[in-house]
């Protein structure tokens, strides 16, 4: 954040000397202000329009030219959207799906990564390889056999349709999670684990009281992305839980039969949870984005 000349280690495309000349400084501020204005308009503008659209009447919503501030703000559309969409139920469904998926993912992916990284079972590398190979499979292409599988689970013949399990279980098969966690566990020194073993701790105890406390950052990353993935998914919940719709699917189903200002209000309500999550955890999310992809 320093406004002084940066050292060469942090210099970028344009040299700091250039920027400190009067012309350079003027150009810098012009570009900065322009970018800020355009980016705010492009990325916040639509969200602002959505938030204020719910306060407008249907007529005001479609009038030319559009009003920037609602002329007779009313919260009527929000309460109507809440009722007509069954927003409470949709929210509850989505929270249950996302929360359960997160819990199962954390339990099984962490256990698997710990086993592959520290307990080293026979064929561990083959298993890891097969998990990673599944990242190459386009998810949408497998929807049909997955759907038939959850209709009639092999061997036990359970039908998981319209139960939370149908959302929860497939999210555990996330090779990227296992990979991220394993790589992190690999960086935890074995001496720490050996010391715990000497103190008489079994693998579960070691995982719980040595490995997990050290892994908070990566657990945070995996958790946030696990939650958001369920929140954003569309095709899978559309076909597997038609009776207990997610927020995404429910809003889409109701979209055609609602007055426009009610729908816009509904869209805004549906967006609040993940936007709030983002604003609170944006540091972790941004760190997580680059954790997997860099160091290639």
């Amino acid at each position: 954040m320093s406004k002084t000349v940066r050292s060469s280690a942090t210099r970028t495309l344009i040299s700091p000397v250039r920027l400190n000349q009067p012309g350079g400084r003027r150009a810098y501020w012009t570009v900065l202000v322009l970018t800020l204005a355009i980016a705010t308009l492009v990325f916040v503008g639509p969200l602002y329009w959505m938030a204020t659209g719910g306060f407008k009447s249907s007529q005001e919503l479609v009038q030319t030219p559009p009003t920037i501030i609602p002329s007779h703000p009313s919260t009527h559309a929000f309460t109507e959207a809440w009722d007509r969409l069954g927003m409470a139920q949709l929210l509850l469904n989505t929270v249950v799906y996302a929360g359960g998926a997160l819990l199962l993912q954390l339990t099984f992916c962490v256990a698997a990564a710990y086993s592959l990284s520290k307990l080293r079972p026979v064929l561990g590398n083959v298993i890891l390889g097969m998990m990673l190979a599944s990242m190459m499979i386009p998810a949408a292409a497998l929807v049909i056999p997955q759907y038939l599988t959850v209709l009639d689970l092999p061997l036990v013949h359970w039908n998981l349709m319209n139960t939370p399990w149908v959302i929860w279980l497939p999210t555990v098969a996330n090779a990227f999670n296992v990979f991220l966690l394993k790589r992190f566990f690999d960086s935890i020194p074995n001496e720490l684990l050996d010391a715990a073993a000497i103190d008489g701790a079994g693998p579960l105890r070691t995982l719980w009281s040595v490995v997990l406390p050290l892994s908070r950052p990566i657990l945070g990353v995996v958790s946030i992305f696990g939650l958001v993935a369920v929140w954003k998914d569309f095709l899978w919940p559309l076909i597997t839980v038609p009776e207990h719709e997610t927020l995404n699917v429910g809003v889409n189903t109701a979209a055609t039969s609602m007055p426009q200002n009610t729908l816009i209000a509904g869209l805004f309500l549906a967006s609040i949870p993940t936007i709030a999550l983002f604003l609170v955890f944006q540091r972790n999310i941004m760190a997580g984005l680059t954790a997997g992809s860099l160091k290639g």
Partner: protein
Amino acid sequence: MTTALTRGRPDAEAVRSRDRNPGRTPGALRRAVARNLRAHAFLIGALLCFALFTWYPMVREIVMSFQKVRYGETHWVGFDNFRQIFADPEFWPAWKNTFEFTGIALFFGFFAPFVTALVVNEFRHAQGYLRILVYLPVMLPPVAGILLFKYFMDPGYGLFNQILEFLHLPTSSWLTSPDTAMLSLVLVSTWANMGSATLVYLAALQSIPGELYEAAELDGAGVLRRIWHVTIPQTRLILSLMLMLQVVATMQMFTESFVLTGGGPQGSTTTVVYMLYNYAFNFDKFNTAAALGVVLLLVLGAFSAVYLWLERRGGEE
């Protein structure tokens, strides 16, 4: 970071490999078996989920694509399903639409984030704010973002046409014309998704050593040449990886078509995955849908193989 952590590893590794060998005494063998059982017990949950939801469906899809179900009985039918999808008048248009979406989406989805990252990286102010801005739409439930744009794109009262009129530019029919529908979908999708690519590029740009720019500048390279000779080679790996991920993701486009246009107008936004969905869930032809899934797997598999081959060749140079 790794150097400090790996120090002392050899000893631990030696301890491990000692009891990994079955050894001569029955006690050692029993210990090794017990150790492995325990390790596999930790794996079992994830293993079952992978088996049920990726490995088994993969095999099942291939098997299904050669079968047909008639009156509740399964028959082997050879390549019948494949012949059927190749003969479907929607088949080639669906691929054309898919490639069209991928092509346009790459053009925008690749350049927009890269240029944004390049510009933002030069700023000494407001970087944090800009990062939050571009990532904000990524966090919206996709349906919310998509339906919002449906209003903006309405040919009558939509905000976009009102702005175009205000600027005395020609208006567009957006989603209602086959000529512009796909482009409109790309616009929505780019707006909603470019945030993650931008942040990844931004992180990559920040890892470029400043001396390289310094040296290039001393050699008299202008800004564009510095981008071409320093920035792009230094971020090549991440750029090519993101390119591949984006191709694979956009080739599977479904939600935008389904929510925004229902595949129309006149089939102009019916993609391969949309067609697959129709086969299975509107026409009840799961085996034909599976055959289409296999074709999609093969196409994307071939693409990944070519990518890996090029990557490896690039690495050897």
